[in-house]
């Protein structure tokens, strides 16, 4: 019935908006579209479509009269206008919602940034967001940033774009009552990665800066968190050539940043405290150029830094000597964090390959194609002495792979979600909490894999 009405509707639309453009005209007294409408109404969708198809065939095989009958001038414009609306509207997709769920060390609550950039504090016992504890009051914008726990407060970031003009916002909220301590506005998107070193908040712009003379330069921002008058103020900016998609990483007292111009910058975090724009040379340790843009996160494991680039190359280098690196070809982009397990590296590419790499000589041992796109970071889970690896796949929820089966890529079940998933799950006691891209929090029982609770953060109610 629905199909029938839809077909009739489409035919009416064709007749009204498209057919004036086509110079051909039907050879019958009742035009083909009208005929199909009638026949579909009478004989049903299948027979109706068949009969109208036959008639169309007959019609088009015969020569046809050329005359534009336009009774109503307005009709001519409907089609282009609708087309225009269609192409301008197809661009709206959900953004954000990559935030991981972060558990408070006292285990009483956890924090998450919704896809609209609102930070929630949710009580672990009942899964209900704390009342009057959220910032900002109105969700407006996008967030990819995990909330970061720092002393007695929570720090996160969001941004809001109108066309290409973006306004970023970094803020600190008091954990006990949800009061905002400071807010800093940045004229660009903000990279999800935020680090804290010695009371200095370090983050970077995600995209190229607006209103900057060199359009390719991004900034690393340093914000003071010390309890003095300077708190929440930008104490320094490090300009970097190229967009930063990997984010800033802190490891072993050093800051690592990779850019889309293919450079890896290393700075000395210990010298940041008295940083002023003049002493950039002093804090800079190294800058290494790679042939392609670096779009993955940076990964650190046993004093080695690893990342991959847009050509699908996976690099590994020692922290102390990043200039001498080894590389291996993954063949596709890699976004998710690799799993370091049993002294092997498992990497996940966007075409669904799981590639096992030998860390010593950095060689590919095995490639399995699972056609599962892994974007969020995988986690290792232990149940009853068995180890499992949880793969957050983009479309089908979290795939559970038994560790002994890992080399084969065989799934032993899943926590399934209907919505897209770009974040990593939180495992807490017997619960597994997933934050989907449309900002629904799904609560699963770890063992039985049953979904027992779902909270829609944007609507602030239980999901339908």
């Amino acid at each position, binding site marked *: 019935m629905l199909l029938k009405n839809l077909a009739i509707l489409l035919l009416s639309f064709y007749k009204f908006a498209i057919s004036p453009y086509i110079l051909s005209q039907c050879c019958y007294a009742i035009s083909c579209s009208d005929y199909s409408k009638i026949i579909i109404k009478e004989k049903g969708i299948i027979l109706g479509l068949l009969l109208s198809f036959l008639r169309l065939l007959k019609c088009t095989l015969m020569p*046809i009269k050329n005359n534009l009958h336009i009774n109503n001038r307005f009709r001519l414009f409907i089609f282009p206008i609708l087309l225009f609306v269609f192409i301008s509207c197809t661009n709206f997709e959900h953004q954000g919602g990559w935030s991981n769920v972060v558990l408070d060390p006292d285990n009483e609550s956890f924090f998450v940034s919704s896809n609209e950039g609102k930070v929630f504090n949710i009580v672990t016992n009942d899964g209900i967001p704390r009342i009057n504890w959220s910032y900002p009051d109105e969700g407006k914008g996008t967030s990819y940033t995990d909330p970061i726990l720092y002393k007695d407060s929570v720090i996160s970031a969001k941004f809001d774009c109108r066309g290409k003009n973006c306004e970023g916002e970094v803020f600190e909220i008091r954990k006990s009552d949800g009061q905002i301590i400071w807010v800093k506005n940045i004229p660009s998107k903000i990279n999800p990665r935020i680090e804290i070193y010695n009371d200095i908040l370090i983050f970077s712009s995600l995209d190229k800066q607006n209103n900057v003379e060199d359009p390719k330069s991004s900034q690393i921002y340093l914000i003071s968190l010390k309890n003095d008058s300077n708190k929440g103020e930008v104490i320094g900016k490090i300009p970097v050539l190229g967009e930063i998609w990997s984010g800033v990483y802190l490891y072993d007292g050093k800051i690592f940043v990779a850019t889309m111009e293919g450079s890896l910058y290393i700075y000395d975090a210990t010298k940041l405290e008295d940083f002023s724009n003049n002493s950039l040379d002093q804090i800079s340790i190294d800058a290494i150029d790679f042939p392609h843009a670096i779009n993955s996160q940076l990964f650190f494991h046993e004093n080695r830094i690893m990342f991959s680039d847009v050509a699908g190359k996976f690099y590994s280098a020692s922290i102390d000597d990043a200039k001498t690196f080894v590389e291996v070809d993954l063949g596709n982009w890699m976004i998710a964090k690799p799993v370091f397990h049993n002294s092997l590296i498992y990497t996940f590419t966007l075409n669904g390959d799981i590639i096992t790499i030998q860390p010593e000589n950095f060689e590919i041992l095995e490639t399995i194609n699972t056609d599962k796109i892994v974007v969020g970071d995988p986690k290792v889970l232990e149940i009853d002495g068995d180890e499992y690896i949880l793969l957050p796949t983009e479309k089908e929820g979290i795939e559970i792979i038994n560790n002994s089966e890992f080399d084969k890529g065989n799934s032993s079940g899943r926590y399934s979600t209907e919505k897209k998933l770009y974040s990593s799950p939180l495992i807490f006691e017997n619960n597994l909490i997933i934050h989907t891209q449309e900002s629904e929090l799904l609560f699963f029982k770890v063992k039985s894999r049953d979904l027992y609770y779902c909270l829609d953060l944007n609507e602030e109610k239980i999901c339908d």
Partner: protein
Amino acid sequence: MNIFSLFWNNVIMKPMINSLSLLYDLLGNNLGLSIISFTVIVRFILIPLTIRQTKQMKRMQDLQPQLQALQKKYKNKTAQTRQKLQQETMALYKEAGVNPIGCLGPLIIQMPIWIGLYRAILKSAPSSPEGFVDLSKYFYSWNSSISKVPFDSNFIGIDLVDFVQFAPTPWQFALPLIVGLSMFIQQKFTTSPSTDPRQQQTQQMMLWMMPIMFAVFTWQFPAGLAVYIFFSNIMGIAIQYFVGGKQPLMLFGRLYFGTKESREIYIEKLNAQKETKQNQLKENNNKEESNESKDIQRENSGRSNRRSSKNPKKRSRKSRN
């Protein structure tokens, strides 16, 4: 819906993004050149269709006098005469070998390409992390130009991925203008003077409204799409010119281009058009006069029909139908 998106992605989006990136790689990392060469390729692929369509239109136009004669012959609007008129026009078309399939408007064929390119351009410069994840899905596994991501979208000072309205000052106005102008000239080339009043009307509408509408829409397009439409129109004009028998172009009452013969034919057609117009005017005037006299009669009899006397033009069109 799923089937539709599968079809859309595999038949339009993937080939488009891959060919754009391959051309970008080949042409020294220049997105502007890659879009222009993409236009040239698409237009070359569409040449058979364009040729067919122009030939059809030409034949149709050649049939105009015969058609009008037929219409005059069956002036009465009864069901029988209508059917007869239809049958005879069909016979006429069959004789001339006019086929409807080649008659599809050039706009309709280009529509999916425009929509696809609009999305392909926006997708090829992801501005968000999910855009990045999405982009990798559109590349074929053999396409090594994926390593050139992110594409440098700067072209003669315009960011091709950004919307035209955000382009630097001369361009944000110049791009819609040249798109509209090229479209206008293309329309002008495609249409030749017609003696059929109804066709004249639509021709006039298409001639003016389409370019204006597209100029306005261009404001909302990524600059790369505006570049595509502009070069596509230029190519269209060139193809039209050589396929359509080097028709002259009439601008501001003057003839440009064209051969001696085609100009003469054009002028002949113009004269014919003028004549029919004058005849119509005369007819209308006559009718108006008769209407007015009728009105006067009605008024005299106490029933005034204001509408008809106020707007005689409308009345006359009705009577023509």
